[in-house]
C-alpha cells in the first residue's frame, strides 16, 4: 500500500512540476491554429508594364495611373541629334483599376496619330504557401490610327484603321528579387500593305525583372516574332531600370522599338538592337487613388 502511495504521489508531483515548467515558457500562439487566410504574391513588377508589354501586375481598385511615355531617336545619330534626344515620339495614357483584377486603359500616341484602348483581367493570382504557382492575366485591346488616308482615290473604310490584339500573360514571382513572365500575343491588323501578307502577327513576350535594391530594378522585355512578321521588322527588345520614388515609377530604358502600343511595337520595329540601332526612352507612371478602397 505504502509503495503504491509513493508512486502515485511522485507521479502527481511530476505532472504538477511539468505543468509549472510549461507555464514558465509556454507558446500560447501555437494553441490556436493559424487562420488559413489566402495570401497572394504581390509586387512581381513595379509597374503594370514590363517596359513595352503589359506585366502580370494589376492596378489596385480605384487607382488611376497616368502614364507618359517617350521614345527618342537613335543614339547612334550622335551629337548632331543630341544622341537622339532631339526627336521624340510620345504616348499619353490613362489606366484605371475597376477592381483589383480588372483594369481598363486608353492612350494616344504621336506615332501614326494612334489611339489605343485595352481591357486587362486577372482570373488567377499567384498564391503563397499553396494556391496557384503562377498568375494568369488576359489582355485584349484595339488600336485606331487616325492619319489621313494615303490614297484618297480608292474607297477607304474605317475598319482599315483598326487593329486588335489578344494576349495571355503567365507570370511568377520566383523570389523577392526575381520575377519572370511569358506572354504569347497575337496582333490582327484589318489592313496590311500587301495582299499576300498575313494579317495576324504572333509573338512570344518574355519579361523579366531583377530587383537591385528596394526601389530599383533591372528589367528586360523581349518579343520574338513567331509568325506573320511584317517584312523588314525586327524583334523588339528593351532593357532598362525601374526607379521608384514615392508615387512615381520611372522606367528608363534602351530599346530598338519606337511604338508604344502592342500593334505598333510588334509590327513596326524596323531597327536592329544587335546592330546598335538603340534608342533611349522612358515611361513615367504616376498613380492616384481616386476612389476609396474597400475596407
Amino acid at each position, binding site marked *: *500500500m505504502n509503495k503504491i*502511495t509513493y508512486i*502515485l*504521489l511522485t507521479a*502527481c*508531483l511530476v*505532472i*504538477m512540476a511539468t*505543468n509549472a515548467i510549461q*507555464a514558465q515558457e*509556454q*507558446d*500560447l*500562439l501555437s*494553441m*490556436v491554429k*493559424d*487562420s488559413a*487566410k489566402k*495570401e497572394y504574391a*504581390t*509586387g512581381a513588377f513595379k509597374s503594370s508594364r514590363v517596359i513595352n508589354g503589359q506585366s502580370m501586375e494589376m*492596378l*489596385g*481598385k*480605384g*487607382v488611376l495611373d497616368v502614364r507618359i511615355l517617350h521614345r527618342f531617336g537613335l543614339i547612334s545619330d550622335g551629337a548632331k541629334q543630341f544622341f537622339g534626344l532631339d526627336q521624340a515620339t510620345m504616348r499619353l495614357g490613362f489606366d484605371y*483599376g475597376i477592381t*483589383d483584377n480588372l483594369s481598363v486603359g486608353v492612350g494616344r500616341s504621336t506615332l501614326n496619330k494612334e489611339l489605343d484602348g485595352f481591357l486587362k483581367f486577372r482570373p488567377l493570382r499567384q498564391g503563397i504557401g499553396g494556391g496557384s504557382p503562377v498568375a494568369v492575366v488576359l489582355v485584349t485591346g484595339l488600336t485606331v490610327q487616325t492619319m489621313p488616308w494615303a490614297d484618297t482615290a480608292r474607297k477607304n473604310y474605317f475598319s482599315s484603321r483598326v487593329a486588335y490584339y489578344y494576349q495571355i500573360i503567365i507570370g511568377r514571382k520566383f523570389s*523577392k528579387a526575381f520575377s519572370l513572365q511569358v506572354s504569347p500575343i497575337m496582333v490582327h491588323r484589318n489592313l496590311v500593305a500587301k495582299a499576300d501578307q498575313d494579317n495576324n502577327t504572333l509573338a512570344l513576350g518574355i519579361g523579366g525583372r531583377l530587383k537591385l535594391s*528596394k*526601389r530599383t530594378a533591372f528589367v528586360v522585355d523581349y518579343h520574338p516574332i513567331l509568325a506573320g512578321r511584317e517584312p523588314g521588322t525586327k524583334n523588339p527588345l528593351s532593357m532598362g531600370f525601374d526607379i*521608384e*520614388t*514615392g*508615387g512615381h515609377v520611372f522606367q528608363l530604358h534602351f530599346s530598338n522599338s519606337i511604338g508604344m502600343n502592342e500593334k505598333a511595337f510588334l509590327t513596326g520595329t524596323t531597327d536592329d538592337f544587335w546592330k546598335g540601332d538603340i534608342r533611349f526612352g522612358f515611361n513615367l507612371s504616376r*498613380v492616384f*487613388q481616386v476612389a*476609396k*478602397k474597400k*475596407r
Partner: protein
Amino acid sequence: MSFLIKKGIISCCFVLMMASLMAQDKYFTKSGSIQFSSKGVIETIEASHRSVTCVLDSKTGDIQFAVLMKGFEFRKAMMQEHFNENYVESDKYPKSEFRGQIVNNSEIDYTKDGSYTAHIKGKLTLHGQTKDVEADGKITVKGGKLLAASKFKILMSDYDIDIPGSVTQNMSDTINISVNCTLELLQQ
C-alpha cells in the same frame, strides 16, 4: 490516521492535477484588430488589420499576439504596396509577434465583470528585429469575455525600417499603435 492523511494528500493531488489539466484559463481571438498611424507633415498614413491572433493565459498573465503583415489594409493601394515591399518587407518577414506578460496580473479578477488596468511588458518582433516594449492597457471582463485594449508607440528606426529622404515629409518615425481584441475562452 496516517492512512487517512495519505488518502487526503492523494486526493488533493488528484484534484490539483485535474484542475490544472482541465483549467479553463486561456482566452483567445483570431479576429482582433490593430490600427496604426504615422503622422507626417503632409499626410497621415493609416492602416488597419482585422485578423489579429491573440492568446491570453489568465493564470500566468502571459499574453501573445501574432499578425500577418500582408493583412494590413491601407486607404491607398500604393501605400499598401510600398508598406509590404519597401518598409516591412513582408515576403522576408511575413509575421510580427508580441510575447509578453501582464505584470499586475494578480490585480485582475477574470471571474468578475469589471474594468482593470493592465501593465504589459514584453518583446515585439517586427521586420526581423526584437525589441522590449512596455504598454498600458485595459482589460474589461464582461459576460465571460475579455475586451483587451491598448495604445502605445514604437519607433520605426528601432526596427531597422528606414524612411528615404524623399518621403520624410509624408510620415514620421513614430508609429502610434492601437490594439483592440475581444477574447473568448479557449476550449482545449
